[in-house]
């Protein structure tokens, strides 16, 4: 096994494309090292991206935010401006693991680990975030929704890795929120997760909505029916009831050690309602 820590993306892409055997990216390492311990992936090369220039930066970009792939959850949480604009995304990232995990774990890693229960992914999907992928054939920008392919699988091609995630410019009256259900108050994997992003016109009518569900399918679900239930409403009770029904209908969960099908289906709706109200409040509409 080899450990490399290149300082440029080009160098990283070259190693990733040419290193013999399996090459694994080390960003925060909080999933990778656990998997290595359980003997799961036989990595031949560990490629640490934290020393690549720019990958630990949070930068303004075209009114939105470009977040380097090696930025930790703790760094995101300390960025007041970002938190002000995308509180739902940041709280989703900050929910991952403990304080110690936050010191290391990255949003890009959470995405590329491709767990159906990843907390940040529904929030990124709701935020319509875009992933910048670098690889042997250059750079491409991909919607977050298109990165996970299924449990543990991504659509990244050999030699590619995520260099940053872009959160679009916050528009007028808009707000996002993410809620998850866990049995304890901390330290658990989401049994259900739900993110809601809402935009309103000056009259307080919802003009746009994105609702995403986690841990209720093999990958994150963009619940378009649920979003339609909200658009054109003032997020009133009938709209919320429709949202709840649509989220429960969109959920395709399995039963496992963390929850039953019935539980996940029901709680998906419960969380959607609660998250929608928080998002509405954050957008400036009185909840």
């Amino acid at each position, binding site marked *: 096994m080899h450990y490399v820590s290149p300082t440029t993306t080009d160098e990283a892409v070259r190693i990733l494309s040419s290193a013999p055997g399996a090459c694994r990216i080390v960003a925060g390492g909080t999933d990778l090292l656990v998997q290595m311990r359980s003997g799961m992936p036989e990595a031949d090369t560990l490629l640490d991206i934290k020393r690549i220039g720019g990958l630990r930066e949070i930068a303004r970009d075209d009114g939105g935010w470009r977040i380097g792939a090696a930025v930790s959850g703790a760094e995101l949480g300390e960025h007041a401006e970002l938190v002000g604009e995308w509180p739902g995304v940041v709280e989703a990232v900050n929910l991952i693991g403990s304080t110690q995990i936050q010191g290391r774990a990255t949003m890009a890693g959470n995405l590329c680990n491709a767990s159906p229960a990843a907390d940040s992914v529904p929030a990124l999907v709701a935020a319509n975030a875009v992933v910048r992928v670098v690889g042997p054939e250059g750079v491409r920008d991909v919607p977050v929704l298109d990165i996970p392919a299924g449990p543990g699988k991504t659509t990244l091609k050999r030699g590619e890795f995520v260099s940053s995630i872009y959160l679009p410019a916050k528009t007028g009256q808009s707000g996002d929120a993410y809620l998850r259900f866990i*049995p304890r108050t901390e*330290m*658990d994997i989401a049994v259900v997760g739900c993110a809601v992003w809402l935009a309103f016109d000056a009259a307080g009518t919802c003009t746009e909505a994105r609702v995403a569900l986690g841990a209720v399918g093999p990958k994150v679900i963009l619940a378009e029916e649920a979003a339609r239930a909200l658009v054109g409403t003032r997020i009133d009770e009938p709209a919320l009831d429709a949202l709840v029904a649509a989220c429960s209908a969109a959920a395709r969960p399995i039963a496992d050690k963390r*929850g*039953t099908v019935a*539980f996940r289906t029901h*709680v998906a709706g*419960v969380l959607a309602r609660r998250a929608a109200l928080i998002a509405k409040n954050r957008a400036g509409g009185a909840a």
Partner: protein
Amino acid sequence: MALDSKTEARKFKIVGTRPLRPDGIDKVTGRARFGADMSAPGMLVGLILRSPHPHARIRSIDTTRAESMEGVHAVVTRADFPAFVEDEALADVLDNCMAGEKALYDGHAVAAVAATSGAVARAALKLIEVEYELLAHVTDVDEAMRPDAPALHEDRADETVPAGMSDNVMARHEFGHGDIDAGFAKADRVLERGYRTEATHQGYIEPHACLATFGSDGQADLWCCTQGHYMVRNTCAAILGMEQGRLRVTASEIGGGFGGKTTVFLEPVALMLSKKAGRPVKMVMGRAEVFRATGPTASSSIDVRIGMAKDGRITAGFAELRYQGGAYPGSPVDMGSMSAFAPYDLEHVKTVGWDVVTNRPKQAAYRAPGAPMAAFAVESAIDELARELGLDPLEVRLKNAAREGTRASYGPTFPAIGLEATLRKAKDHPHWSAPLGPNQGRGVACGFWFNFGGDTCVSLNITPDGTVTVSEGNPDIGGSRASMSMMAAEELGIPYEKVRTIIADTGALGQNDVTDGSRVTFAVGLATIEAARAAKREMCKRAARIWEIEEDAVVWEDGAARPAGPNAGKHPPMSLAEIAAVATNTGGPIAGHCEVNAEGAGVSFATHMVDTEVDPETGAVKILRYTVFQDAGKAVHPAYVEGQFQGGAVQGIGWALNEEYIYGEDGRLQNAGFLDYRIPVASDLPMIDTVILEIPNPGHPYGVRGVGETSIVPPLAAVANAVSHAAGVRLTHLPISPPRLLAAIGAK
């Protein structure tokens, strides 16, 4: 004489205060050495190969490829151990440490290697070829009791088991007195209900670890984290067929045990690897191994029938308890059956317990083994009856409370006990009358546990400068070195700081029983006091010789020998330090020691009160407030007594709400890690309030009762009662995980 009260009325100077613990600095600076913190020159790393199958016959094990790998110094299988171990229980321990004919659970050890590094050892494990013949398995207690269930063993059942039952039923236990049918006939209301609890793990943060060095002269040394290094010595010697005196065991600092370190797992294997390799071998379990292969407690299925009169008097109680204790006989169902109704004064009571084996890891003791699940069932039923009859649950318990003179449900008549006092304190406490909000509920429950005594040795040495060292043989799990130093200082009349207590290795003292059964503060404390008294007698003797007066004309008071009787005041008192300074001249070094089978341990009771809030939309439960009321007899170091109360309560909260062993259809453990085996974290909890009661134990010079275990007995029921009230639906299956609670709310 053993039958009389040993407790003296006295005013304590040190006992009851809160000094700093003697091992404190080491533990806050990282210097303390735990099981995995020791190393030896030339040390090898030992690792275990474990069965991935819940039940399989081991047809063959081929270790040749592993043995020939570079860096591998020894490979061990069951064939390396003695073929026959006479004691059946010890034979089971060996079989659990290294499988014989069959692998009996997912995680059962089947082979081990010692190699120059962990990486080499891991690679070597992959080269061991085990041929398994897969067998049908069973992990559920009720399923295992069906006559057609896959059988783990043949002909292992006690004579107590009726013919025709499943081969997995190992023993039947029955306790009680009176005529329950007559009792039920007098009831105004009879409640019958079934309860289930899932298996939980002790969850100590320190995985098992040891370092073994076996010399070619047949002498061996072992360093390990254990609740009883004398037990480790005796067990390993028996399993390895060696003499006890040739094995010296040193107890490391121990990172939690709660009963789970009262047996051996790695130690005999490490010794055997070291013997074969001719080098020291260190073995440290990973967390997944701890969950898969070390002592969870039993899971249970319990049916309760209780009759109650309109005024709250319990007219009869019956419980049938079925515990699976993993792959070998010995679940604590007997203890559950004895303790189920122990808090109550019942004319008619009967319990029947069934000990059942399943394809799960061999259960190990867990804090008041067997009692928490029994208390959950009985205390839930009493709570439900009280509600139905419109009675105050504390009043109902007070009305039925066992007190001095009550014939216990398990047989004997109670001496002075503190249950009633805990109930009265609970009733008067502001917690009981505090208002509750919507979706909130309050629960109470009582709990009982025995205390143990047993073999105990203490050697107390007076140094030439008048400081004191106490050597004892019980690993210090939660501050016992502090309490021993306190009792020695109290007895000698010297400052606490003048006494230092250490845990001696097995070569230094006689036999000591395990740190279990809440016995240490009681039994080692008793021996420490006796050792101090012996030293005082010797010091009085020395003073008498110096003063040239009769020995019995000298008394020990306030840390000094003083002439008494007709000689009173004729000589200035001689302090401990002054006597120590001339010890060489007056007969040689001064020591006191005590070797005793400490009998006369008391029993212990507690009442717990908890407020919970339920989220009716998700089934989430929040613990809002918690108060423990427990009798400590005499709290030697109240801070550590509180700590025992709080720790037990929180372990019980975990058991009640989220902790459980989850097995798949394939018989494999699905949550062998702290991520999905969910012990409570700091943000799950409020402060845990404690009220210490002191009803002296007549069997101890200071009135001490063990406090370590009782605190885990009431919380399962207390939490379940509180959640049931908050949710408006009775919860009978622990843990009350959110999916389970939400389903119950949905079904009401």
